[in-house]
């Protein structure tokens, strides 16, 4: 790890009296792939919601390239460089695949409302460029054949991939993937992981991955953070994690529980 892209310190949030996440630390380097695992209800998605501004933390700090992020709204988080996918797919169902991706370019596009209505030179230039970039991205995800289709009509696996493409299109420095392989068959999962690896190399992007498929997490992640009841219980390489008694305890239960 050379320099950290994302740095999280003492992050915590309480809902009423319940501390859903407490004292969460994380550092992710450039194009590093870190796994975030833990039993159901451990607080993984809550951490994603904190990192993307959906929830405001009650304590702690988030830095992206050294810039403090706490207090920003979700769309400002995206502009700063944090993008995500959702556990339950949230596509723009009635828009085409291409449009889904192009929505993510919006915050970088410049032409004004008037320009759009009058169809000025800027409109044509930016729209054409956006389309070209969107098609490029779809090609990386092997989805260019679907460009014209309405997102709702895509097969399940493709929908998951489109969410990733859409998140990538925001120009993010770090991608938060919430169970991207959920519901996929082994072939689809393998293809997805290949795609994620390609993305990391091509776009030099860091990835934080929530995943339940252990073999998958163990095989692709460089580092894994394990949480339970909102606390970090272990951090380390896949090998270390696999042999950590605390982790085994959290998943299987220990004798004293």
């Amino acid at each position, binding site marked *: 790890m050379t320099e950290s892209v994302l740095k999280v310190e003492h992050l915590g949030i309480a809902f009423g009296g319940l501390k859903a996440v407490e004292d969460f630390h994380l550092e992710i380097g450039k194009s590093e792939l870190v796994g975030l695992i833990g039993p159901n209800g451990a607080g993984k*998605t809550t951490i994603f*919601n904190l990192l993307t501004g*959906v929830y405001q933390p009650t304590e702690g700090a988030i830095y992206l390239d050294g810039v403090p992020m706490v207090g920003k709204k979700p769309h400002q988080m995206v502009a700063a460089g944090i993008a995500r996918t*959702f556990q339950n797919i949230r596509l723009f169902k009635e828009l085409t695949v291409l449009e889904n991706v192009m929505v993510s370019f919006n915050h970088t596009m410049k032409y004004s409302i008037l320009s759009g209505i009058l169809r000025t030179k800027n409109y044509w230039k930016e729209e054409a460029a956006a389309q070209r970039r969107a098609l490029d991205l779809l090609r990386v995800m092997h989805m260019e054949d679907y460009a014209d289709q309405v997102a709702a009509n895509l097969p399940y696996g493709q929908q998951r991939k489109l969410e990733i493409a859409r998140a990538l299109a925001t120009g993010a420095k770090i991608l938060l993937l919430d169970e991207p392989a959920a519901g996929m068959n082994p072939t689809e999962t393998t293809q997805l992981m290949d795609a994620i690896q390609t993305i990391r190399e091509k776009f030099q992007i860091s990835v934080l991955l929530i995943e339940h498929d252990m073999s998958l997490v163990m095989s692709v992640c460089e580092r894994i953070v394990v949480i339970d009841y909102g606390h970090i219980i272990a951090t380390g390489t896949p090998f270390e994690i696999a042999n950590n008694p605390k982790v085994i305890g959290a998943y299987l239960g220990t004798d004293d529980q």
Partner: protein
Amino acid sequence: MDGFVIFINQIINGIQVGSIYALVALGYTMVYGIVKLINFAHGDFIMVGAYVSLFSVPLLVRMGVPAWLCIVLALAACALLGVVTERVAYKPLRNAPRITALITAIAVSLLLENLCMLLFSSSSKPFPTVFNKSIFNLGGVQFNSITLITIVLSVISMILLQLFVKKTKMGKAMRAVSEDGGASILMGINSNTTISITFAIGSGLAAIAAVMYCSAYPQVNPYMGSMLGLKAFIAAVLGGIGIIPGAMLGGFVIGLVESLTKAYISSQLADAVVFGILIIVLLVKPTGILGKNIGEKV
């Protein structure tokens, strides 16, 4: 002292109108709670109830039974109307976009109003006396028997409704369907029957409100339901739509606000004040006074 008497009279007025609003609001709220539909036709059920009472009073008198029994006939007619409306117009749209159902409800409202106009003409008809109007005087504060009957009858209806919803099996089924329609079907609840009964009760309450309203303001016309319905609907939203005690609370709040505004500020501005309060409440607490805030899970 005089000012105080006027004030008390306005409060009594407000409670009287408020209890009518509350009865109507209950219909809105129960229906919304169970099918998530703003039943715009509900106000017109009041109007239908009023016409049914209007025409049944002479018959009842001829048969030698007390005129106030027209409530029973109106109640039955409205309950039937509510169930039929739901079955014919709303049921096919349960899975359609919300706005489609909303427009259908508006269309049903227009249909009822215009049918009645066609049948009974648009001019107002006087409503016969069904309750003897005797005036009581309590330390300078005057109120009449109709006020008393209205308030008492409304409170009794609300208590009965609350008991029904909390204690009976059907009441539990209603709460279950409004909580989660899909799951309640899996639990063996017949959601169609439950929804029909909800419409029947809600519309029946509108019939009671109709007789009470017409006793206080003895005129019947095809449009009488629309503003009354709108106010009651606001009451339901104010209290927290879908919540039964909320509808009652909202009804009384709107009744009091309206009555006091008319007395002390301006009768023209009463509507604006009512809407203003609605807006403020919604902005401060979007789900109404008694509503629970439910954020969407990400």
